[in-house]
Structures are given as C-alpha cells and as structure tokens.
C-alpha cells in the first residue's frame, strides 16, 4: 500500500525532470595575444676599430645601436651582459663596463658606468619601440701585447609582465 500511496508523486518527479532544465546557461569565449617582443642590435663602425694601445687613458666608445619593441603594456627590459674582458693573443686583457643611453644622446660620463663585467639594463614602462646607444668604458694600455682583442656583449630582451 505504501508503494501505491507514493506512486503518483514518484511518477511525477520522474516525469517532471524538465523542471530542472535550466533557464540560464553560459559559454566562455577567449583568445590570445602573442608577445611581439624583439631586439635588434647593430655594431657601429667604432666597435671594430677600438684603440687599445693609444695611451693609458680611460676611454669611452660607442659600440652598438639597439632597437627593441614589445606590445607589453608594462614595457620591456634589455639586459646587456658583457664578457669579463677583451682578450687577445697573450695574457693581456682589458676589463670593461657597459652603459646604455637614449638614442643619439651624449656619451655617458665615466661616473655613470657600472662596475666592470656587471650587467647594464635598459627599461621601458609602456608598449612600443625604444632605441638605445651602447657604450663601453675601458682603460688603454700603451704596452699591451700586439694582436686583435675581442669581446662580446650578450643582449637579451624580456617583457616586464
């Protein structure tokens, strides 16, 4: 009898499943914007004709023009990571430091350069393109061993966000 008693209600709950069908629904749409981050650095002519033995003076020379761009609203950071020093055919080396300035600005003074072999950074705070001139500072040696001295500066770019 108890089965019969609740038969109607049970059938109803089964049949009225539409009562639980939704009156609301939703979808999610999405898309991705890729970073356009890039950096291009060009050696200037002076980068391959550095005067190492013209005297013993502290020397500041522009070695590169860099252009970088990104669509990151927070801008980008360029990092200039120099080798420890210029090396040549013998044991003589030239330690040097790196400093970047605004494109076409005056050369940096000696006091603004970081320590030798330290990274230098160029930072922006908005999307777009930026140009920087890269200088090095080293001390000449009039008695250095003859030969060709070379070094590299690794340049990396990163979005700020």
């Amino acid at each position: 009898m108890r089965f019969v008693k609740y038969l109607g209600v049970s059938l109803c709950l089964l049949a009225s499943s539409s009562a639980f069908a939704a009156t609301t629904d939703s979808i999610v749409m999405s898309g991705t914007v890729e970073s356009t981050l890039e950096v291009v650095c060009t050696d200037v002519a002076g980068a391959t004709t550095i005067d190492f033995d013209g005297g013993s003076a502290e020397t500041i020379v522009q070695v590169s023009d860099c252009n970088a761009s990104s669509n990151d609203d927070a801008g980008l950071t360029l990092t200039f990571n120099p080798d420890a020093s210029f090396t040549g055919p013998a044991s003589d080396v030239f330690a040097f430091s790196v400093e970047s300035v605004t494109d076409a600005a005056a050369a940096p003074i000696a006091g603004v350069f970081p320590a030798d072999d330290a990274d230098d950074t160029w930072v922006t705070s908005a999307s777009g393109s930026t140009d920087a001139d890269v200088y090095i500072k080293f001390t000449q040696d009039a008695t250095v061993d003859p030969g060709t001295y070379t070094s590299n500066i690794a340049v990396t770019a990163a979005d700020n966000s």
Partner: protein
Amino acid sequence: MQWRLHRGIWLGLFVCHNAAALPTVAATVTAAASTLDLDGEGSSETYIVKVADVTFSTDNATGCTLTLSSGDIAKAGGLNIAYKVTSVADGAAAPTSGDFTVPTGTDYTYAISSATSSDRDVYVKYTTRSIQDPGTYSETIHFTVADT
C-alpha cells in the same frame, strides 16, 4: 485506500503541471569561440565570429524571451576589448556589421511568441587594437530565458 491513491496521483499531476511551464535554454560553445583572433601584434581588424548554438523553448502560449549579455573580452592588466552580440536563425548566413544594433554592455533579446522551440546561432562583433598587451583574454556570455 483508494482516496489515498488518488491523492498521491493528483498531487503529482499538480506539481508536474507547474514544473512543465518553465522555459529552457541550452547553449553550445563553438570551437571558434576559444580561438578568437585578437591581433594586438601590429594590426587590427573588426571580426564577426559565431560563438554558440543556442536552443530555447517554452510551453507558454505567449512564448518567451531569450536574453544574451554583452560586455568586454578582458584580462587583468590589459585593455578590454568590447564586443556586441546578436543572433540569427540556425544555419543562416552570418550577420553583417550593421546587424549588431545593441550597444556593448546592453542585453540583447530575442523573443518567440508561442509555445515552441527555437534554434539560433549567436555571433559577436569586436574590433581589435594594433597594440594589445599579450596574454589570454576571455569573457562569459550569459543566456537567460523567461516566459513572456
């Protein structure tokens, strides 16, 4: 005992009658909805994209109204990309730019006037920027149906 049986059945039918009056809506997202072209890498454009198939129905004699939300495709730290929404009959040609008459941020509605079921294709229109903060942008479109 017979009275008890009838009471159970009539109670059930009463509940069933009320429950069946609710309209229903079911939306199915399209593949294109999750791969929206947002540009932002040097070029911009206006896009019209089908984002959902929606089915809604009612047994209400005077029909029901389907409501779709609209707003911005967004991410934290990036500029919002506003969009408009409209719908066309299932399988119909995509709407043109001028068919998106409801402003961004305002609900779009589509009504049917009898107890029936309707299938619609849901489209969005948005315009990208040539420079846009990188990342994934998303947005939820809400579907609501109510008897009229």
